[in-house]
């Protein structure tokens, strides 16, 4: 079990940049679980906002890698899930479906948002609006997928009726999700500009 690793060939700038950005988004997801903005009875936690953002700015595959690394950190026992949760127990419990669902959701968001890619670099007002339509549609469908998987699992594991599963596992968070989608939609243009500056260093 002894091993020494030597230096060989190198990753390209793009590969390293994607790795760093993927890790950064994974870290933001973990931190997002601790940043709570009090709104009404259920505070807004920014974790799934960063999951959506990963799909928007990294695309489907690097977004999935980012979510995968975030999940791996949690499985290994690092307290990165909501409220400091960690371990496989989080996936096995009734709310594990929401965590599992982040992976297909980020791929879906990346794929749909990617359809509007031609408009991302175009500063014209019409192009910005069209890109925003794709982004909002991607986030709405991605969130719907998270709830479809999360609420189904909650229902089956907790023995709830559909009505109760909806009332406990979806209804209280909908306002927060609308706010997060609105915030992401208004932020994404600025973030893509930041990334463009990042890419221009290549």
């Amino acid at each position, binding site marked *: 079990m002894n091993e020494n*690793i030597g230096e060989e*060939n190198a990753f390209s700038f793009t590969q390293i940049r994607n790795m760093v950005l993927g*890790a950064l988004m994974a*870290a933001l997801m973990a931190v997002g679980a601790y940043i709570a903005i009090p709104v009404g009875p259920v505070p807004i936690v920014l974790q799934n906002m960063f999951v959506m953002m990963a799909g928007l700015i990294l695309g489907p595959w690097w977004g999935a890698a980012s979510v995968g690394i975030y999940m791996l950190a949690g499985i290994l026992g690092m307290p990165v899930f909501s*409220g400091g949760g*960690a371990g496989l127990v989080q996936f096995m419990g009734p709310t594990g479906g929401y965590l599992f669902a982040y992976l297909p959701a980020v791929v879906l968001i990346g794929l749909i948002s990617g359809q509007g890619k031609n408009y991302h670099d175009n500063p014209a007002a019409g192009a910005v609006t069209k890109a925003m339509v794709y982004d909002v549609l991607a986030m709405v469908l991605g969130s719907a997928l998270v709830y479809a998987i999360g609420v189904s699992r909650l229902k089956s594991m907790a023995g709830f009726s559909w009505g109760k599963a909806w009332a406990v596992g979806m209804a209280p968070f909908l306002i927060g999700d609308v706010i997060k989608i609105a915030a992401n939609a208004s932020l994404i243009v600025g973030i893509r500009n930041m990334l463009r500056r990042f890419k221009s260093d290549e």
Partner: protein
Amino acid sequence: MAGVNLFVYTPGATAVHRMDPRFKLAALVVLSLATVQCGPYAALGLFFIAAFAAIAGKIPAFTMIRNAQVFLLFLVGIILVRGAVTPGPAVFNGAIPWFSVNGLEDGLLISWRLFVVLIASAVFTGATRTSGVFSAVRWYFKPIPFMDGARAAMMLTLMMRFIPIILDEADSIKEAQRSRGLENRKNPVYRITRLIPPLMERTFTRAQDLTLALVSRNFGPNPTSRGLHARKTDWLYLLLLFSLCAGLRVLD
């Protein structure tokens, strides 16, 4: 939030620090798995194991967790929610009718399990250098087909490095905004859109610097890293931990 230092390495030369990172990681997973659906006695036993590791490694795990008030609030929240939604006889002979004894017991057990995992992970991150985590994760990923161990390990290591940086940045931004009275704004979208851009700007700048540093060092799939050397004592500690966890679960 500045007190959340669960991911920061604490230098030392204790037995826990000297242990091979692969074994520390395996120990963390074993302990974490042992808490799954465990009963109160097993949870207590697992707590003593995690606490012993923290003391042996001279890791200020309890100070870190005490500082991270959000964890403790979350644990209290679990107890309150469980007490409110679980049916059963009310506590204090019906003095608090909405809070059941069964819910209180359930909530305490769930919170306790989470607390044990939290201490164990604080010990792991506190006693393992980032390079050690990198080498260990890379080693575990090596035999998995279609999985790039070097990239996964690098991303995990970078993620661990980014978390305290982001928390510090978020804290300083929130502090600056509080001084300008942003806390009084009711509109949540306004508040989020005032917090996220400076946070992203600052963290992207760090990410950019890091990328350039890695490129300039020719970072590749086989980077130079610390050698991994398993010793007999590592096997012994891991087997001991496994036996203790298994024993606790059998007796539970």
